[in-house]
């Protein structure tokens, strides 16, 4: 392992036994996560995201392959010390208040009492639960639960945050706040590994993504690269064009501008044609038509 | 492997401690062994549908209790309370009534409770010939109350399915009303043959032997007195009776003891165990 990779997964396989039947949940997946990046682990529900995360945190054992977290077996105490983990749709101890809960996990991390007294109010403020800190967790809303969960992952100031579906079930403002928190952690030099099936969010946050589908990793790489791979069309936006000259083009009229869609290899040829036929033509913009992650994803899954 | 050894080690220590605790606790256990026996009527309700199993469980405890005291102090203060609770739980526990009453009469020498137990049996289960029969039996052999014995033997003959034994005993006692050792012997032999347990068999066997000794003593005394009448002197040994032709042979003592003459009567000596 070179020092840059925080998580290394090689040919990881996992079976679940239901009665006598064995069901393969993960088919030999491999990926790695580099220090300081935000890694999005993407895939539809049931693809194996949560299983992978549970293996990384030591909640599940694995059947074959090699997994290293900070160079340790997953679930190793040293590894656990450096990880902050937010499970999917986390539940907390209903009977505790937010403050008491953080105090409890703080003690499990071995943080001194005097330190906790200062730290917990700060954390509660960071996640916006300053007022709710003394209320029982039982009374919390979905978004508040997610926030106290984030506060819990931050209590030990971990090097790696593993967040399972941190944005699910939140309103747009809540999502924005949590995304901001993730960025902030990145600024501090932390590594973030998070899973999501909501792609636009991932698009805004991730440096690199891994896409998992049916227990197999389909793609890993920097987000920009993945998206560019699929660029096929260019959009040319023009003004002052005679619509009669546009026979044979895919076009769309937007106000007094016209958006023309052309394949990559015909861009130059098309522009030449347009300039010949329209004297007053004004080209406003030529842009590659970038797939959104969602479109890309739908396409990938269709292929499979 | 190391873990397995740890677990095994723990277990060995536990077995050892448990064994020691048993010893420590057993010391004072006997004094209070069943002070906690609850009332049968209460127990009936608590036991729900498990009354008979509970009665059986108590029966095991009872046997253990009896066995323990038989080997040690031969005192049985709780014999009746256990039997009482037991028969409250299981009102038709025949063996508990019959065997229990014999133990009360024979071992605890407790006529009052022996009879009380059998009266309870007759009240709970009136159409069984066994209960009046045993009542008669106890009165005949233990309490020597022949009038009462005859009454209960008669009662037994009236119950359905009573064997003719009952009638014979009834008739015998009713007409002769005397201390007849042959009848007693027959009664005990019947008990011996119909015994269901070793305990019972042993008691019956013991009584058979005792009765035989008594019969021997009675018969020999008769011969000795006849001898004195005819020969005009007192014999010193039984061998003298054989020499003069009054006796064919000295009967065998069932306990391996011997018979001897004192004055005009014959007595016996039973060896101590």
């Amino acid at each position, binding site marked *: 392992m070179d020092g840059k990779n925080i998580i290394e997964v090689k040919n990881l396989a996992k079976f*679940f036994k239901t009665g006598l039947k064995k069901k393969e949940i993960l088919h030999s997946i491999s990926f790695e996560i580099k220090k300081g990046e935000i890694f999005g682990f993407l895939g539809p529900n049931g693809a194996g995201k949560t299983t992978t995360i*549970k293996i990384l*945190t*030591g*909640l*599940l*054992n694995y059947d074959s392959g090699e997994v290293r977290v900070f160079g340790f077996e997953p679930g190793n*105490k040293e590894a*656990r*010390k450096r*990880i902050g*983990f937010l*499970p999917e749709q*986390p*539940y*907390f*101890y209903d*009977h*505790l208040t937010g403050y*008491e809960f953080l105090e*409890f*996990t703080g*003690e*499990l*991390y*071995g943080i001194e009492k005097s330190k906790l007294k200062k730290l917990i109010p700060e954390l509660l403020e960071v996640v916006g639960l300053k007022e709710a800190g003394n209320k029982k967790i039982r009374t919390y809303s979905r978004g508040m639960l997610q926030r106290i969960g984030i506060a*819990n992952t931050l209590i*030990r100031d971990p090097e790696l945050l593993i967040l399972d579906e941190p944005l699910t079930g939140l309103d747009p403002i809540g999502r924005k706040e949590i995304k901001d928190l993730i960025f902030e952690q990145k600024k501090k030099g932390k590594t973030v590994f998070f899973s999501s099936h909501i792609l636009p969010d991932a698009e805004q946050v991730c440096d690199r993504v891994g896409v998992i589908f049916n227990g197999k990793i389909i793609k890993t790489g920097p987000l920009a690269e993945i998206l560019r791979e699929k660029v096929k069309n260019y959009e040319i936006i023009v003004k002052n064009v005679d619509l009669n000259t546009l026979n044979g083009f895919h076009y769309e009229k937007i106000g007094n501008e016209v958006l023309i869609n052309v394949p990559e290899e015909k861009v130059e040829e098309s522009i030449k044609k347009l300039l010949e036929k329209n004297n007053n033509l004004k080209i406003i913009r030529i842009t590659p038509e970038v797939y959104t992650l969602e479109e890309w994803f739908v396409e990938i899954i269709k292929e499979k | 492997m190391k*873990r397995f050894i*740890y*677990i095994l080690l*723990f*277990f060995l*220590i*536990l*077995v050892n*401690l*448990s*064994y*020691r*605790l048993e010893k*420590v*606790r057993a010391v*004072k256990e006997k*004094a*209070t062994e069943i*002070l*906690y026996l609850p009332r049968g009527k209460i127990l009936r309700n608590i036991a729900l549908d498990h009354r008979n199993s509970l009665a059986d*469980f108590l029966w*095991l*405890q009872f046997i*253990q209790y009896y066995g323990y005291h038989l080997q040690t102090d031969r005192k049985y203060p709780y014999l009746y309370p256990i039997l009482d609770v037991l028969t409250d739980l299981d009102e038709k526990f025949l063996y508990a009534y019959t065997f229990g009453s014999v133990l009360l009469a024979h071992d605890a020498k407790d006529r009052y409770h022996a009879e009380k137990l059998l009266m309870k049996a007759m009240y709970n289960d009136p159409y069984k010939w066994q209960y009046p029969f045993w009542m008669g039996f106890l009165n005949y052999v233990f309490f020597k109350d022949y009038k009462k014995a005859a009454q209960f033997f008669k009662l037994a003959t009236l119950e359905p399915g009573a064997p003719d034994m009952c009638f014979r005993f009834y008739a015998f006692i009713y007409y002769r009303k005397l201390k007849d050792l042959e009848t007693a012997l027959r009664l005990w032999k019947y008990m011996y043959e119909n015994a269901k347990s070793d305990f019972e068999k042993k008691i019956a066997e013991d009584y058979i032997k005792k009765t035989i000794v008594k019969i021997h003593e009675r018969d020999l005394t008769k011969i000795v007195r006849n001898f004195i009448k005819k020969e005009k002197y007192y014999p010193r040994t039984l061998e003298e009776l054989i020499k003069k032709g009054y006796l064919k042979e000295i009967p065998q003592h069932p306990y391996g003891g011997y018979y001897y003459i004192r004055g005009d009567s014959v007595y016996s000596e039973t060896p101590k165990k």
Partner: protein
Amino acid sequence: MRRIFAIAKNTFKELTRQKIFFIIVLFGFAMLFISFFLYPLSVGEQSKIIRDFGLSAITFFNTLLVIITGSALLHKEMDKRTIYLVITTPVERREIIIGKFLGLFMIVVINILGMEIFHQILIFFTDRKFDLSMFIALYPYIFEIGIIIGILLFFSTFTGTLFSAFMGFAFYVIGHLIESLKLFAEVSKSVFLKIFSYFLYYFLPNLEHFNIKNKVVYGEIPGREYFIFSTSYGLIFIILLLYTSSLIFEKKEFK
């Protein structure tokens, strides 16, 4: 040590903030109180009855409390998935088991003490004096409770709540009847049955070792030897149960 204490404290809070906990404790105290009013019925035996009844109420309700709350101790965390948050901290899994054990154990010990103090007050009202030997009668019971909690935790590591509760109850009953098993072993004629019943007799916890109530009520207090042996028997049994529970829990997967 601090982590164990944190888990114990959390368990303590969790249980004491439950309704069922208060209901059972309340019933226990009510039962004690009722025994006090039985005394006109008891014709001259009131001081014995208040002792018997009090000790029975204390042991019965605490056993009930432990079986009901103890069987859900681990499962509640697994069902609600709060265990994820604990397991992924640097806590050892055996520390979770020990912490859970101590949390419940502490509650029961405090409850026993509280109930016994109340019991002493009732004794004082009937006898005009306290009877501190009752505390001695309850001392070995604390180990019985510890063993039952251990059994509940042990079964909780690999079976469901109901089954664990059932096993806890079964062990409680068997543990008190077990000395008949020895009788069975002694009487049994088959060698196999003999060995088997002796094995079971020593393998299963003998809870009668911790029952001195019926002696103490009559003023018989066992010697020092008894307390040394019963304390070590109880402690070692608890350690064994927690150790094997931890071994299983260590391997457990959380789906």
